């Protein structure tokens, strides 16, 4: 059996390993288009911080890992797929045929529709190459403007703040991390950043970036309110879009990403998709959406591989969840943190202490949560949500004091 995986990020690598675990004899080809060994982009901020070397981002640390497992890892870029023939074509023209194909090509950063993005010193923060570009300009005298304070923007924010002289963050939404945080949490985060001397401008758009010659940097970021901010470095983090362009004409159905069913199989038989590129089942909503998070990518990779092996692994959907630290303030969100119609919530806010916990229930099940300043035993929130634990009288207790969530969990699993 010939298994081909396109895209050597976390989804692709976990899939390859799972395939090997399940089938000692299969041919497994892992194709990636980046020059480095398979790495994890989410570790890039820690390279910028100086905590790790670039090699610290590599997904597997043992020398000869892929060869050892008999996984053929090769560089190459898929240009097109012909699902009907069971082949794909690499740039350069080589055709590769497959019995099973996994599309794990991830996503590409979006660009804001403004002029000046091609100026030197304007970077995405998505690849190790981007990382090297940013690192060159990042020093304690640098004025940096970060455009976008979404989830990934905020993670980058932490790294930039640690290394640069002066950081301004521009976000067009009315709060930070609007897709994982409500107004209370977003506001708290913004106040926290302010207290750490990071200027965060919300409800503000960038109109363009211009070359400049001031002492504050060789660029000026022009805002829609007319203000300009001098910068040595501009980092973009305004969102990503799945890498599906090369599938045009392949016969594989796409929407935002590759449409997959409950086996992570696409409309074309034998072709699967996983990770940031896949529009998979969401555990909370029951709908199909692109998560673009690490845990979903590895989960997809594993389950897709099981199905490629013919194990008929039925996918119950991934829980959208995030954890991030913004200059030291840890926040996390899980599932339907915005609540569901007819549901109840339990909320505890301590504005001065920068602590917040919001639990959302449907009936006596926990369905979502949002936390700030919470680090102990956070995982049980996932456990309670995904197990659909009937909380019984614990629901009321949690509404009174949501911080007893670990107790509620232990009470249900251990007693």
């Amino acid at each position: 059996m010939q298994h081909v995986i396109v895209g050597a990020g976390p989804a692709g690598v976990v899939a390859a390993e799972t395939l090997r675990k399940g089938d000692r004899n299969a041919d497994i080809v892992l194709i990636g288009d980046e020059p480095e060994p398979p790495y994890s982009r989410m570790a890039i901020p820690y390279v910028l911080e100086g905590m790790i070397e670039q090699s610290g981002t590599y997904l597997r640390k043992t020398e000869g890992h892929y060869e050892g497992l008999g996984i053929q890892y090769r560089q190459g870029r898929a240009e097109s797929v012909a699902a009907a023939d069971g082949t794909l074509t690499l740039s350069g023209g080589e055709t590769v045929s497959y019995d099973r194909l996994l599309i794990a090509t991830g996503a590409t950063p979006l660009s804001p529709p403004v002029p000046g993005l091609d100026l030197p010193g304007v970077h995405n923060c998505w690849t190790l190459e981007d990382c090297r570009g940013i690192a060159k300009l990042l020093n304690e005298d640098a004025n940096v403007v970060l455009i976008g304070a979404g989830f990934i923007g905020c993670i980058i924010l932490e790294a930039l703040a640690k290394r640069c002289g002066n950081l301004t963050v521009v976000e067009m939404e009315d709060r930070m991390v609007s897709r994982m945080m409500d107004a209370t949490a977003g506001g708290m985060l913004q106040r926290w950043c302010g207290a750490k001397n990071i200027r965060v401008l919300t409800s503000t758009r960038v109109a363009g970036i211009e070359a400049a010659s001031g002492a504050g940097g060789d660029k000026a970021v022009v805002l829609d309110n007319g203000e300009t901010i001098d910068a040595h470095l501009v980092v973009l983090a305004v969102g990503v879009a799945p890498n599906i362009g090369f599938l045009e004409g392949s016969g594989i159905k796409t929407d935002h990403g590759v449409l997959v069913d409950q086996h992570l199989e696409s409309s074309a038989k034998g072709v699967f998709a996983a990770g940031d590129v896949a529009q998979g089942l969401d555990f909370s909503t029951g709908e199909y959406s692109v998560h673009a998070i690490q845990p979903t990518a590895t989960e997809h990779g594993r389950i897709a591989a099981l199905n490629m092996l013919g194990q008929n692994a039925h996918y119950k959907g991934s829980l959208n969840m995030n954890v991030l630290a913004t200059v030291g303030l840890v926040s996390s969100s899980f599932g339907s943190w915005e609540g569901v119609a007819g549901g109840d919530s339990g909320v505890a806010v301590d504005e001065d202490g920068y602590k917040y916990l919001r639990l959302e229930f449907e009936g006596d099940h926990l369905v979502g949560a949002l936390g700030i300043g919470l680090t102990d035993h956070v995982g049980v929130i996932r456990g309670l949500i995904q197990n659909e634990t009937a909380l019984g009288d614990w629901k009321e207790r949690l509404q009174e004091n949501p911080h007893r969530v670990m107790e509620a969990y232990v009470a249900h699993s251990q007693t």
Partner: protein
Amino acid sequence: MAWARNVLRVNLTEGTCKNEPLNMDWAQKYLGQRGLATKYLVEETDPRVDPLSPDNKMIMTTGPLTGTCASTAGRYSVVTKGALTGAIACSNSGGFFGNEMKNAGYDMIIFEGRAPNPVYLLVENDNVQLIDASEFWGKSVWDTEEGIKAKHQDPLIRVASIGVAGEAGVKFACVVNDMHRAAGRSGVGTVMGSKNLKAVAIRGTLGVSVEDVGSFMQATAEGKQTLADNAVTGQGLPAYGTQVLMNVINEVGALPTRNHRDVQFEGAKNISAEAMAEPRADGKPNLVTNAACFGCTIACGRVSTVERSHYTVAERPEYQIASGGLEYEAAWALGAATGVDDLDALTFANFICNEQGIDPISFGATVGAAMELYEEGVIGDAETGGIECKFGSAKALTDLAELTGKGEGFGAEIGLGSKRLCEKYGKPELSMSVKGQEFPAYDSRGIQGMGLAYATANRGACHLRAYTVSSEILGVPEKTDPHVTEGKAGLVKAFQDATSAVDSSGLCVFTTFAWSLDDIAPQINAACEGDWTAEKLLEVGERVWNLERQYNCAAGFTGKDDNLPARLLKDAAKTGPAEGLTNGLDQMLPEYYEVRGWTDEGVPSNETVERLAL
């Protein structure tokens, strides 16, 4: 090492919190906790101060072992001038508050002055704040503790607080931590209330280290093994708790009953450890489980429920929970002292004592005194507000617990303590107390040494200053005859000194059922810098005892206060093995002064003061 070497000084009047280094010279002389905090109090306050005035200070203090893995090493004490007694007060508590304080990096917290408005102290390591407590003032200990945890969104905060009783000036209010562990005696909670300090909430994550880890791990492991192998600490206390004593003490005829009218209680078996293990109407026993304090490998603590259909809780689901159950002293005071043998009523009254922060010993004993006043016709329904305050009335007991917990109605009078109550009604002789503090659960007619122990206890009548019961009844470390007075002066002194040392270390005194100072010294020696032998500990203990005595002398106490109520000296025990005996205090006291190196008036002689380098 072992000591955090750090004192937090909180001036409530000014609203300031400051760190200062622990006086390590004093630490070498007074070890920690009881001894060291007393030294601070002596140095910093006038012994004649009104306990409830802002000039009195209240010190929460850990020992050097607090927070380490030595068995029972989670203790802290509250040291101040007692509201009930006007004498030096040192009330010791377990639970988990002491280790949290040490983990936050403090050996002691010294509270000075009085806050203009109710406040609580929040300590998160070096982040310390006084916070307005108006939302908790008027609330019980239980609601305060839960409220603070919820407010600060941290279920792992440990809280020590006062209930409504402490706010209302009930003279025997305690400081309660971890829902049902209390620094119980002498009215330390009353002092806290007088300072407008509702609670101290601590989260400590810094860790505690010791001087010589290798030796410490070995010494503590050996100590734990000794506790496990001992019949009392290895089996008796975990299985039955201190309540194992109820039937034993009743049988030896030393169970003070109905305000010490009798020495045996016909209902003792109904309120004993054995009764707590019997299935009730609901099929479950009173005792749910035993529970340990921090680091304790004995685990004598009781967790109990009140039977659901019992009148006290039938309509009040909030009390249909498991909570701190009866310890022997509480069971005695709420039961034998009042003649009540309804175990559920006692358990409920005990819940209320914990919930509102009142000392069940002084409370029960004072109710006993009130019952005698009532039966003698000295007080009537007019005074009690219609409560039929008769010996044996469970209803009177539980109603008074609730009233006293809030300082309301006749509860406010009970809250005066038996001495003030009986004086008020012209019957001072009916107060079963020394230096204003009620006796605990051993009748000194049946256990002679306890008479001397009570009479000379620095904080007023107390069993925990010299538990000669251990020798006279249980035969630990060696058996002495409970009915004789010979040799008791030396015995009491030895117990007093050793206990003072243990109370200064961070360990629980219950370990001494199995441990002598020879077992304890290697643990302290490995943990602390300096040379800590059993001899040195005994010397520290003696020094602490004399320091406390000096404080009391300066506060106005004299040898005349080393006395027992006439009932124990004149009215012979009516039944049991001690029938016909009174306490022979007059035979023991002079000898005691002599072995102590005190003058005939009971004042430490110059020579003694010099010898102990006081």
